[in-house]
């Protein structure tokens, strides 16, 4: 698969225009996967021409990429894969997109997702699901399914995604690409459609670790428009010290996890040992409660964040209504998919006065216990590893009738999200049906660079 360096070489040997043209052509050749909701050809080619005459320069000059369609970006509507924002033309661009454009990168299209990033398979897109890059009868994973598939199909060397509970890592795992969810606050979320503000993060999907490091180094840092951003601490580390202490999370290796997935994680652990690192089994007993916490806290935040879609200032507005109450109710019924409604209503329930203590407050206290367990482990270990998801990509439609079954796929990605920890998904082998398997590397707060350099050192072995 083409790396950013390959693409830059192709640009020097021909032109940014020809490279961007062929990426657009490749996107159009792969329409059957439904990875993209729009192709921003006109704006992309204009920018490519500016690269070719030297008006646009930078570390990524002329390199095509794709953004998940919950990032505000010019050149096509920002839909969040919803009817609510089907015709919404963003008046500004997300900080992450601006930073990449400032280095010359060229956005060629906007990737499919679960509507408002609510989901784990991209089947909740109001415009139809994305198909897995390895088997079109299977899901792309989600919610950044389109970003994962378009990267896996080699259309672009990288695609942006957002990860609230696994939405970058799980589709990366399902499509055999690298997925990076940074420490909470490392990358600005300004201009990205908010889902759950206490766990939303912005990251990238790439074909290799080195490219992920480059893109993350460009996107990271403080932004006055996102008060939760941390001062820039990310520096690409060039070497990894031997004797890293690695904890293999045994709670993620139960019989509920596919044998092929467990085997690959064990092989990865052996590979780490072979490279001189110390791998030991560790226990994270609170992990089994993380999904229950997540499905209280996150719907509560979704319920608040999606309350802005009222049909008044922007987005869809229902027609033929007489009163304001009717306008709100009908607009939101028409603009949201069922999964959005399900989460909004759970959120309303757990936040309502009679149930607040039993659900929302209880979950936030349990979250503290989970964080304490992680902190305790990080007193002894530098990195934790485990699977990304209990299975490889499942069949389209297999889990849609049972929301809990669908949610259970996130069981090993949500704990890190609730704790704000960085975690990456690294492709490592296939299962018996030749579907990709991902291994998850988890580190303490701000250990993003360590995780990436450790994964990079394993990549070449």
């Amino acid at each position, binding site marked *: 698969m083409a790396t950013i360096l390959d693409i830059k070489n192709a640009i020097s040997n021909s032109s940014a225009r020809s490279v961007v043209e062929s990426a657009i052509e490749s996107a159009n050749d792969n329409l059957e996967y439904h990875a993209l909701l729009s192709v921003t050809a006109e704006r992309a080619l204009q920018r490519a021409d500016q690269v070719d005459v030297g008006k646009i320069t930078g570390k990524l000059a002329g390199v095509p990429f794709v953004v998940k369609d919950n990032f505000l970006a010019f050149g096509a509507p920002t839909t969040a894969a919803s009817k609510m924002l089907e015709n919404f033309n963003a*008046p500004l661009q997300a900080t992450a997109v601006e930073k990449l454009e400032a280095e010359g990168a060229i956005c060629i299209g906007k990737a499919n997702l679960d509507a408002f990033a609510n989901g784990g398979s991209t089947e909740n897109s109001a415009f139809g699901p994305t198909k897995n890059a390895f088997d079109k009868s299977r899901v792309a994973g989600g919610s950044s399914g389109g970003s994962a598939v378009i990267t896996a199909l080699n259309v672009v060397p990288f695609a942006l995604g957002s990860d609230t509970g696994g939405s970058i890592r799980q589709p990366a795992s399902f499509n055999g690409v690298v997925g990076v969810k940074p420490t909470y606050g490392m990358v600005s979320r300004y201009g990205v459609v908010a889902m759950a503000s206490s766990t939303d993060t912005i990251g990238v999907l790439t074909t290799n670790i080195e490219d992920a490091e480059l893109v993350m180094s460009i996107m990271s840092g403080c932004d006055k428009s996102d*008060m939760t951003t941390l001062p820039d601490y990310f520096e690409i580390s060039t070497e990894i010290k031997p004797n890293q202490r690695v904890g293999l999370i045994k709670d993620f290796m139960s019989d509920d996890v596919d044998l092929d997935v467990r085997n690959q994680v064990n092989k990865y652990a052996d590979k780490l040992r072979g490279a001189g690192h110390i791998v030991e089994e560790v226990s994270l007993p609170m992990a089994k*409660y993380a999904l229950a916490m997540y499905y209280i806290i996150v719907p509560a935040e979704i*319920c608040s964040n999606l309350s802005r879609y009222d049909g008044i200032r922007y987005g869809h507005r229902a027609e033929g209504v007489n009163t304001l109450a009717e306008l709100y*109710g009908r607009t939101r019924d028409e603009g949201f998919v*069922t999964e959005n409604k399900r989460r909004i209503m759970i959120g309303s329930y757990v936040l309502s006065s009679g149930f607040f203590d039993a*659900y929302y407050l209880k979950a936030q206290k349990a979250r503290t216990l989970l964080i304490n367990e992680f902190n305790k482990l990080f007193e002894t270990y530098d990195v934790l590893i485990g699977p990304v998801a209990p299975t490889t990509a499942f069949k389209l439609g297999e889990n849609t009738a049972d929301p809990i079954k669908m949610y259970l796929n996130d069981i090993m990605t949500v704990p890190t999200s609730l704790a704000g920890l960085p975690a990456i998904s690294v492709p490592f082998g296939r299962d018996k049906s030749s579907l990709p398997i991902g291994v998850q590397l988890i580190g303490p707060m701000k250990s993003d660079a360590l995780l990436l350099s450790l994964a990079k050192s394993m990549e070449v072995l």
Partner: protein
Amino acid sequence: MLHLAQLSKLELSDNEINGLQTDIGNILGYVEQLAELNTDGVDPTYQVTGLKNVWRDDEVIDYGITRETLINLSTESLDGSVKVPKVL
């Protein structure tokens, strides 16, 4: 269920209400397992990086977006204002 839909400002069809009722019941049943945890004396975590009330100076920041651009995002506008149905 209707009350919950109303709180959520969602006008749902009967069909959808039935499905949602089952799902939401099941999900609330699943999350009930937290009840078995002892959280006495534990502080809740609302924010993971320890931030508290980040303030900024009360000044207008120019994002280069005009009032007209923003008003035009609404479905209906009149004389530079967003138009809505009768409130009272």
